């Protein structure tokens, strides 16, 4: 076998944390091999060290320790020689938004000194592969998120690199474009024999790679074929049918608290489990919570969760209890949106959107970046005036909502917006005062938040210096201090690791059980399974809405498996785009 294209051994890289000078071990002794003609995937949640590792290979960072060879060259010593032979697509690819698709391509071809003859050969290939041929004259800034990524990939491939490094090429991209991007990448590897290293936080994508390196907090948890990771969960995966009348997420939340259960997620109306013990004939007959589990084939995510659980102690059960009775259940809907329209100039960002949310429901707004869900969300919170339509929350017109109406809302912004210079305790104190909490009540609620979100140990840490997961917890704590009736969450789980995401949903489930109404946006399709109702948005319109089961029903089941939420999303979007195509002459 030929020598590996990349060999890295015991790589270390430490960054100084902003502020008080603590250290972050982005890479803590990681070894990696990338073989020629193969697709290798770096898998792990945000902050695992994926980007750092890729930047080391591209010669953009020098490691603190360990040895690294890319195409036989030390990238830290001779970055230019490596860069001449590789293609690197960073997370935010540098497209010039005011240049057209063609101009962007030409620019990158010029930068890399691609000759006119090579271009005449390369361009048609790239256009065919990315399906961008129809849009060469369009400004890059006006492309959808998925098309921008394809253009970025095309620009990276204007000359033929020997190794292609992709840093999370599919993050924030809608499922349809995500699938198309993967078709391109697989084509590059299979048909053109290109060596590709890609990072991803989507676990299903890792299954497509020949080799995976599972990273978590700068350490490698596993390396090898993805099937090897999947096999870790062999005999442990099962599904439970909650039966009629039981809310899937409530059962799933209970399962997570079971020490025998490593992982539980709602999946297609069932609860999917990974048990800590391998199934034996006896164990199979044993019931869990009075239900009989049905063993199923493990998948990559199951193995990944077993690995991840090994790094963290089993979190104690969440007991999130409201201390005050909520307003009595109102008849009808808590949130009522009718024909909501938002225009920015001649661009319609939200186009006649209508939906209703009942008390105690979890309502999910799903869609790719740019679908209009954040705009809708901001109008719901009164942060953006609507151009048309009506918006009522608890019977009050949002535009007219006064301080009293706002005091019943809780809001967690996309980036968990907190005052970075202030400590955890000071942030909580400020928001408690903002919501009019005083005296013993205030102290009690702040203590509650510190305890509930496990923040007591960090209460004197400046919030900017909190690790990512803790920022989300603090944002949740601040939003729940005043025990709101309605909770708005904008992409609350983006960037969180799978364990943190499960803990988050367990709290949301507990709150909904107590009557809190939750409205949440997400681009993780599987998270739709936690919702009572979802609306799928694309291009500013609601393409479909209903319960997760109803939405799944819109897609045809694949061979031998039930349709997933992602299949449903793709079916819905494709159908809508096809209709639009017909409508146009």
């Amino acid at each position, binding site marked *: 076998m030929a020598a590996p294209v990349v060999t890295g051994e015991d790589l270390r890289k430490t960054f100084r944390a902003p502020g008080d000078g603590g250290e972050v071990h982005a890479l803590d002794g990681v070894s990696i091999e990338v073989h020629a003609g193969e697709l290798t995937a770096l898998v792990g949640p945000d902050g695992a060290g994926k980007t750092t590792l890729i930047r080391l290979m591209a010669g953009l960072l020098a490691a603190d320790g360990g040895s690294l060879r890319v195409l036989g060259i030390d990238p830290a010593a001779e970055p230019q020689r490596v860069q001449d032979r590789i293609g690197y697509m960073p997370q935010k690819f540098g497209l010039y938004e005011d240049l057209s698709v063609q101009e962007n391509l030409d620019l990158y071809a010029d930068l890399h000194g691609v000759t006119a003859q090579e271009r005449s050969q390369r361009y048609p290939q790239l256009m065919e592969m990315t399906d961008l041929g129809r849009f060469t004259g369009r400004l890059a800034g006006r492309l959808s998120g998925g098309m921008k990524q394809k253009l970025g990939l095309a620009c990276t491939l204007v000359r033929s690199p020997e190794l292609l490094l992709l840093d999370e090429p599919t993050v924030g991209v809608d499922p349809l474009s995500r699938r198309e991007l993967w078709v391109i990448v697989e084509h590059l590897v299979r048909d053109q024999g290109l060596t590709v290293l890609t990072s991803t936080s989507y676990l299903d994508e890792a299954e497509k790679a020949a080799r995976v390196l599972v990273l978590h907090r700068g350490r490698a948890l596993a390396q090898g074929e993805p099937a090897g990771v999947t096999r870790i969960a062999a005999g442990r995966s099962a599904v439970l049918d909650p039966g009629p009348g039981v809310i899937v997420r409530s059962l799933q939340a209970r399962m997570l608290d079971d020490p025998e259960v490593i992982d539980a997620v709602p999946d297609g109306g069932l609860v999917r489990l990974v048990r800590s013990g391998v199934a034996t004939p006896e164990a199979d007959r044993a019931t869990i919570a009075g239900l009989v589990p049905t063993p199923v084939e493990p998948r990559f995510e199951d193995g990944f969760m077993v690995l991840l659980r090994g790094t963290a102690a089993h979190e104690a059960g969440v007991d999130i209890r409201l201390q005050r009775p909520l307003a009595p259940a109102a008849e009808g809907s808590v949130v009522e949106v009718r024909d909501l329209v938002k225009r920015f100039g001649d661009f319609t960002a939200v186009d006649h959107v209508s939906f209703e949310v009942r008390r105690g429901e979890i309502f999910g707004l799903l869609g790719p970046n740019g679908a209009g869900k954040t705009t809708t969300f*901001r109008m719901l*919170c*009164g*942060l*953006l*005036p609507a151009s048309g339509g009506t918006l009522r929350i608890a019977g009050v017109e949002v535009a007219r909502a*006064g*301080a*009293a109406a*706002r*005091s019943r*809302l809780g*809001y967690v*912004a*996309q*980036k968990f*917006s*907190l*005052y*970075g*210079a*202030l400590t955890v305790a*000071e942030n909580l104190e*400020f*928001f408690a*005062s*903002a*919501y*009019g909490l*005083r005296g013993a009540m205030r102290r009690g609620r702040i203590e509650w938040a510190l305890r509930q979100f496990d923040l007591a140990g960090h209460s004197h840490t*400046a919030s900017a210096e909190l690790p990512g997961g803790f920022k989300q917890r603090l944002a949740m704590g601040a939003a729940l201090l005043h025990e709101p009736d309605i909770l*708005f969450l904008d992409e609350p789980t983006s960037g969180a690791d799978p364990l943190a995401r499960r803990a988050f949903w367990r709290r949301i489930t507990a709150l909904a059980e107590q009557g809190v109404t939750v409205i949440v946006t997400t681009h993780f399709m599987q998270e739709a399974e936690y919702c009572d109702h979802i609306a799928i948005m694309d291009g500013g319109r609601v393409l479909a809405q209903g319960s997760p089961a109803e939405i799944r029903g819109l897609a045809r089941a694949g061979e031998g498996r039930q349709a997933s939420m992602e299949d449903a999303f793709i079916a819905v979007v494709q159908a809508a785009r096809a209709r639009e195509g017909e409508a146009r002459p």
Partner: protein
Amino acid sequence: MLESILRVIALTRKELLAVLKDPRARNSLLLPPILQCLLFGYAASYDLNHVPYAVLDRSHSVASHDLLSGFEGTGLFERVADLRTQRQVRDYVDDRRALLAVEIPADFARRLRAGRGADIQIIADGRNSNTANTALGYARSVVSAFNDRWRADHGLPGPAVTVAARAWYNPNLVTRWNMIPGLIGTLTMIQTLMLTAMSVAREREQGTFDQLLVTPFRPAEIMAGKALPSMLIGITQATGVLLVAQLWFRIPFEGSFLTLYAGLTLFVLAAVGIGLVVSALCQTMQQAMLFSFVLIMPFALLSGLTTPISNMPLSLQYFTRINPLRYAIDIAQRVYLEGAGLGVLMPDLWPLAAIAAVTLAAASWMFRHRLQ
């Protein structure tokens, strides 16, 4: 109402904490105004003290020596050369070795003794008209002192009219006396405007502004909570400059602190109002920073601190009426140097109140119709 006040207090506390906890922000609050004040006090002065001059004395008489000793006696002049030829005068002035050249003709003493009056020539380097004028003024007073002495010594009648000039409020006409009180307003304005404009822009950029808007805070409360800390900080900075003026430069304070602080409070309110308008218009900190700079330059130039407003073209003079700094400098200088009371300062106070009212109303309107 109580709820409202408590919320404003909470926001004010948070703003102050955010500023005071950040070491960089904390240091940039007091240090730069005091350093700038010291810098201006020493560097920005129209007073000349080591005027280099050259002498071409063709008379070589007792009288000419007497005249020249007058130059030495002031302590303001420094003789750099005794020249012999006209040609050398040109050289010395050309390469800036001398700012002035005093040329005394050969018949100087003879004509004086004959009672016919003698001419001397003083050549000044006019490339900097300001400095040349000041230096010539000094030279003229040296010559007129010489004339007085000569007349007295030779029993000649004195001039019919003499001017006894007294500069009130600044008897020695030291630029510093005029400059430093003016800086109280100028330095405070720069920091207050920037601080206010940036504080909202920072929250916008970091997403915390949305968080603030969904809490029960009303727009007016947010504005008050943003305005109060900036005003507090502005007044503290003004106090810093005031202390430097009194304790370091020892410029005597003639007025009442109450009057001065009343004027300053109105002024800082107007500056905060402008800052809030800027912040309502800007989405990012970079925009807020640029916008503030664009405003501060003309405000400082058209304030009357360095150049008199009455010398500006009429259209610019109208503009100075909406410049809060113009009034603040007037208030500070008049209270500080002449001890003016509130009644006399009314023409300065009501425009400040008007500017504050208009900008705060505009900012609050923009916040309510925000984020279009």
